[in-house]
């Protein structure tokens, strides 16, 4: 049974793909024949119901995937910076956009952005650098829908290192903004 179905499925998809190519038409979805075993065999209705269910399942899977990505993004609360650079890394854009949209969707949520620098250079300049790092993330969250009043920023400069020591690895961990 399983083998039959599987083979049938493959040929059905192949047939549809060929039809699609020949007709250059995108109105017909390939899914309808992809679910041949339906309880009601009375033609169009059964096919449509199956298609609807497939579509719902697909949407549900997508929703779950999106949720997982969002949750992972929301669980990412530390963002690292290059040496002497106040702008966040381009790779963090999507994650930060999700944080921004989450704030927009939850107007009662409040966050604190804590900016940090590594210990090289002067303390007060590093304090200013930490401030600019926190502000760069704050501004991006606002662009993505967060309200100014939801975000408090504070810079600790080099006063609260995440990792002690005078190594590049420690410095990399210390140049950061934390969402709290």
């Amino acid at each position, binding site marked *: 049974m399983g083998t039959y179905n599987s083979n049938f499925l493959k040929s059905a998809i192949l047939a549809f793909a060929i039809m699609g190519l020949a007709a250059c038409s995108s109105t017909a979805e390939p899914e309808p024949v992809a679910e041949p075993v339906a309880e009601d065999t009375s033609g169009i209705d059964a096919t449509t119901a199956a298609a609807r269910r497939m579509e719902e399942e697909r949407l549900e899977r997508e929703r779950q995937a999106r949720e997982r990505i969002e949750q992972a993004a929301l669980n990412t609360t530390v963002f690292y910076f290059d040496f*002497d650079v*106040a702008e966040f890394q381009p790779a963090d854009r999507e994650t930060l956009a999700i944080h921004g949209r989450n704030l927009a969707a939850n107007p009662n949520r*409040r*966050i*604190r952005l804590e900016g940090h620098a590594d*210990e*090289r*250079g*002067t*303390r*007060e*300049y590093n*304090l*200013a*650098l930490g*401030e*600019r790092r926190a*502000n760069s993330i704050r501004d991006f969250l606002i662009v993505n829908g967060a309200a100014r009043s939801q975000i*408090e*920023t*504070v*810079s*600790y*400069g080099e*006063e*609260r290192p995440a990792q*002690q*020591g*005078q190594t590049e690895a420690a410095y990399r961990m210390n140049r950061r903004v934390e969402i*709290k």
Partner: protein
Amino acid sequence: MKNSLLTTLLSFVFCTGVFAAELNIEITSGVDNPIPIAIVPFAMEGDLTGASEDVAQIVSNDLEQVGEFRALSRANMLSLPSEASAVHFRDWRILAQQYLLVGKVTRSAGSQLVQVQYEFFDINREQMLVGEVLTGNITQLRDIGHEISNVIYQQVTGRRGAFTTQILYVSAENVSEELTWFRLELADYDGRRSQVLVESQEPIMSPAWSPDGQQIAYVSFESTLPRIYIQTLATGERRQITNFSGLNSSPVWSPDGQKLAMVLSKDGSPDIYVMDLRTNELRQITNHPRAETEPSWTLDSQTVIFTSDRTGQPQIYQSGLDGGFPERLTFDCFYCAKGRLLPDGVNLVHVRRETRQDNSYRIAILNVETARIITLTDTSLDESPSVAPNGSMIMFATKHNGRGVLEAVSIDGRVKFRLPSAQGDVREPSWSPYLN
């Protein structure tokens, strides 16, 4: 955010006179030909129980620390005079000494007061240069010793001594992953007699002196946000003077004592502001989307020197109080920051990283008239230079064996001494003005 209420409740701050762990001086480099000076142990007369200080040793340490003197070892002395009548100059001439200090400490029965008589001689000219009697409480022998050092330094070098000055600095002690104690401490210039002025679980930064030495300003995060506080040393009274949104940092008094320069980010990015301390009126000095910070003053209190990264990397600029386009002071360095003028008004001490590849931050002096640069240190994480009121030495913070320590260097770079801390990291020294 979730922790902020808890942090507020937990972070307690108090003012106290508790003695803190002392710093001990270690001379790391001196001049090639220091002036030989014989400092004879002072005679002790009368009931001196409770007088634990060795006045002659205090003077000896003071003069050696600034590097220009070398004190004769006591073991090599041929005689131990305590007054002029017992001094035989040939005893000192054959030991190749140039100067001689003798003295005695006397306490009358039943009195809390001690008298310290001292006499200071030029051996080659067989001449007494100074002789006087200082009176003080038995607990003030250390102060009297530093005062004698001031007199000798002035006699020999012609410059005012800074041995009775003090330093402020911040110490940080990691107790656990979650707990660090930050302390604002006050000590003699040599790190002795330190006391804790403020203690907090939140960072303390940027201690600064008022020009009359009576008040201090600093940044405390005790409210979980950086805010500026002013404290009167004699009474311990303190008040928060700023509460603007964003950064409130880097307070520095103008030399005339009327204004306080500071950094605020209330209008977006960190910029320099000046507060008139009589009217509380606030004036914005810089207005730039990048970071402006680390203000200091020219001697006439009319111009503010500051660090800005408007060209990409930090450089030093100055701007008049009326704003206008700032004048850039440093050019040929990758990173130049924290500029402070020496008392001559021409030499600018600063933190300098020469090139991107160089990767070390050192203390240097730029002569703003001749553009000549002298690099004073050879360590790699130097910061927070603070100049002695006589302009002879610069104290700064650096790392030694992975720990924050304070060091001092003479303005010609030849003399260096280190004040290691007993525990934790020490940083951000601020040298007092003359305290009289």
